[in-house]
């Protein structure tokens, strides 16, 4: 602990020592028959200072040691004095203080204590042979009469220590930058395995590096205020070798929030990449057949329902990046006993999660505020049933809800159900493309609720003007539609029972159905040019 000396003196004319904030001390708590005054304690500390100064051991003698003093009472009204030493200290010096205290009272506890709990204040300092004691800054004291120097002290602003982060486990694979359903089916279980091996929440920098270097994902921070989201998972232009996947993050977020958002978007990739991939293909098909977008949108809505379903699923996975599976809240809570009662798992989850968010970081651990903290936790937990799924008000509330649900019995059924629905969506996409691509698709379109004039069709004409920019300038100028059914395989496509790699029965098996079913047809489409009919190429 570096103690600085202020350039200017206090109002009493004394020097001022400036201490950094230290949340914890090593406290020797003792009881007494008659409460010692500050003079008694100063005499005690001075005797130890003199013993230290006279020590033959240079390591004992040559040091800067600060002593603080606390007076507090426990819940039963017993009064204690705590002599507080630095947390890291030679045991010889610790014993010197303990021996001196035993002459004054009975030591009840020697422990690591929060500064606030023992109501500590700086009391004295041994500065390489100089003895310093602290007095009221306004007090005028004659320095000549004492064996020690009187000073006053001030403490620099309290700083909440950054939350502890753990490194990611060693990752022994490197994925390429382009992804398709086949490569994703191999990659996503590996990412899930990495997450399952985590020992604690990692840092934004570490997760970002892993995403870029090992998972083959682009992670970009968006500095412009034109990005109104926290984060976004987006697929690039799908070509024969798949597509790039980019995670966009709002640059102005604090690093702690960026970690949470990156975890959420990574969860979308692990759980929902087929959807993003299919969406991108649908968008590319819609370049040729604008009405396809509405048809596809309706199909997605029919299969997957409200978007919050996907968000909740992503949050569920993301909680494992915040509190990995080793954090078994039930088991951890069963070992804990606090303030005369057990700690509930959800209460523990709240506390662990809270420290991972900015602004809501807990003050340093302190018994002094435990009741207030417990009341806050209870209020938040009481609200959990009323958390609006679609609008959880804060990220923290969204993640808390997911955390408390992740071990519920129904959660696995929900995941399986979503997997099945993604699989069904995948199965129905091919026939939909085939139907829309059919030159005689009029009746099909009408059946789907779209008349010939497209009165009910939602057109987004502005997106037709320019292809999406995904960093591949050449393709942007000449966008390609790589996946289109031919007339030869159209019939097969409508009957083929596709399997989604997200389906449980397909775990770990390569997916070739997509490639088998469709011959790649590259259609060169220039901006501002009407799409060419398939058969006229």
């Amino acid at each position, binding site marked *: 602990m570096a103690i600085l000396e202020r350039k200017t003196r206090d109002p009493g004319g004394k020097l001022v020592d400036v201490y950094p904030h230290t949340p914890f001390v090593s406290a020797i708590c003792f009881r007494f028959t008659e409460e010692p005054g500050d003079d008694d304690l100063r005499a005690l500390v001075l005797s130890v200072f003199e013993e230290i100064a006279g020590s033959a051991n240079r390591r004992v003698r040559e040091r800067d040691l600060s002593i603080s003093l606390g007076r507090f009472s426990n819940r039963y009204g017993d009064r204690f004095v705590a002599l507080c030493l630095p947390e890291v200290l030679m045991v010889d010096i610790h014993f010197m203080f303990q021996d001196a205290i035993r002459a004054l009272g009975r030591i009840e506890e020697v422990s690591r204590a929060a500064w606030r709990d023992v109501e500590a204040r700086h009391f004295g300092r041994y500065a390489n042979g100089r003895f310093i004691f602290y007095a009221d800054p306004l007090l005028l004291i004659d320095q000549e009469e004492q064996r020690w120097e009187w000073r006053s002290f*001030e403490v620099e602003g309290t700083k909440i220590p950054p939350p502890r982060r753990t490194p990611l486990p060693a990752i022994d694979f490197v994925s390429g930058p382009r992804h398709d359903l086949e490569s994703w089916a191999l990659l996503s279980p590996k990412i899930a395995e990495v997450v399952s091996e985590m020992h604690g929440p990692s840092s934004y920098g570490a997760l970002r590096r892993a995403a870029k270097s090992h998972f083959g994902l682009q992670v970009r921070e968006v500095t412009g205020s034109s990005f109104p989201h926290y984060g*976004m998972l987006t697929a690039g232009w799908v070509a024969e070798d798949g597509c790039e996947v980019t995670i966009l993050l709002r640059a102005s977020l604090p690093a702690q929030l960026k970690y949470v958002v990156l975890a*959420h978007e990574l969860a979308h990739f692990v759980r929902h990449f087929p959807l993003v991939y299919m969406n991108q293909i649908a968008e590319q098909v819609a370049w040729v057949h604008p009405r396809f977008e509405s048809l596809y949108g309706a199909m997605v809505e029919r299969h997957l329902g409200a978007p919050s379903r996907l968000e909740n699923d992503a949050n569920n996975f993301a909680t494992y990046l915040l509190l990995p599976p080793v954090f078994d809240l039930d088991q951890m809570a069963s070992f804990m006993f606090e303030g005369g009662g057990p700690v509930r798992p959800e209460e523990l989850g709240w506390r662990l999660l809270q420290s991972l968010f900015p602004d809501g970081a807990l003050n340093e651990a302190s018994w002094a505020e435990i009741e207030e903290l417990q009341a806050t936790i209870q209020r938040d937990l009481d609200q959990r049933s009323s958390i609006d799924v679609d609008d959880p008000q804060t990220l923290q509330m969204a993640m808390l809800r997911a955390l408390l649900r992740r071990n519920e019995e129904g959660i696995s059924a929900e995941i399986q159900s979503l997997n099945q629905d993604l699989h069904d969506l995948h199965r129905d996409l091919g026939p939909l493309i085939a139907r829309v691509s059919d030159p005689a698709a009029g009746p099909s379109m009408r059946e789907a609720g779209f008349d010939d004039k497209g009165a009910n069709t939602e057109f987004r004409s502005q997106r037709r003007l320019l292809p999406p920019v995904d960093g591949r300038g050449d393709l942007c100028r000449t966008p390609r539609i790589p996946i289109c059914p031919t007339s030869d395989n159209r019939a097969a496509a409508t009957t083929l029972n596709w399997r989604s790699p997200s389906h449980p029965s397909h775990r770990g098996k390569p997916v070739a159905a997509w490639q088998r079913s469709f011959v790649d047809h590259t259609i060169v489409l220039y901006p501002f040019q009407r799409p060419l009919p398939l058969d006229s190429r």
Partner: protein
Amino acid sequence: MIDDDQVTISRDSFLEPLGMADLADGERSRKEFDALFALAVEYCGTNHLIVAGAIPGQALSELAWKVPGTAITVRLGGLGDGELKAILGLALFVIASGVPPTALALTPLVAALGRIRKLRTAYGERSVVEALARAKPADARNVLLALYGKPCLHSDAGCRFLDGESGACAISLEEVEKLLAWLVDEKVLRQLNPTEPIEYGIAL
């Protein structure tokens, strides 16, 4: 479309986007942050800084995590003179003096800020109020300790309490007490308790 002069703020993150990261103290409770957010939204609304409908639609190939809660997009141009930051800082001081965060309202805070801005820096009035806002508890002794021996908060003001040699404040306890009493008379501050040590809060 949103131009670069606009930011989206929400309960999760608003101080930093508004350029007030120094107010984001970890010691603040969620209630206090919620109160500050409500004030920021009210201020932006009153000053017509809220841009409606600024969140665009989502393309097919995107899975976006929208800003949850009451997310609004505001124009930063209207925040140029730091008034919002001063209001939020003042609100924190008012909360610290025992006013429940939920009881805060924008109008009295703006009025109080107007009174504070009229105080004279050369007479140390402004510095005393600013030091009081940081003092815990907010009494004369802690105001003195926050000012004495420290660099002048308004170094160009020619303050009568400035020690020319050291460039530090040399105000005395008696002078602080007199200034505080005068500020109470002027209805800038209010006395929170009748006996020593007397604590002070902002008069709303």
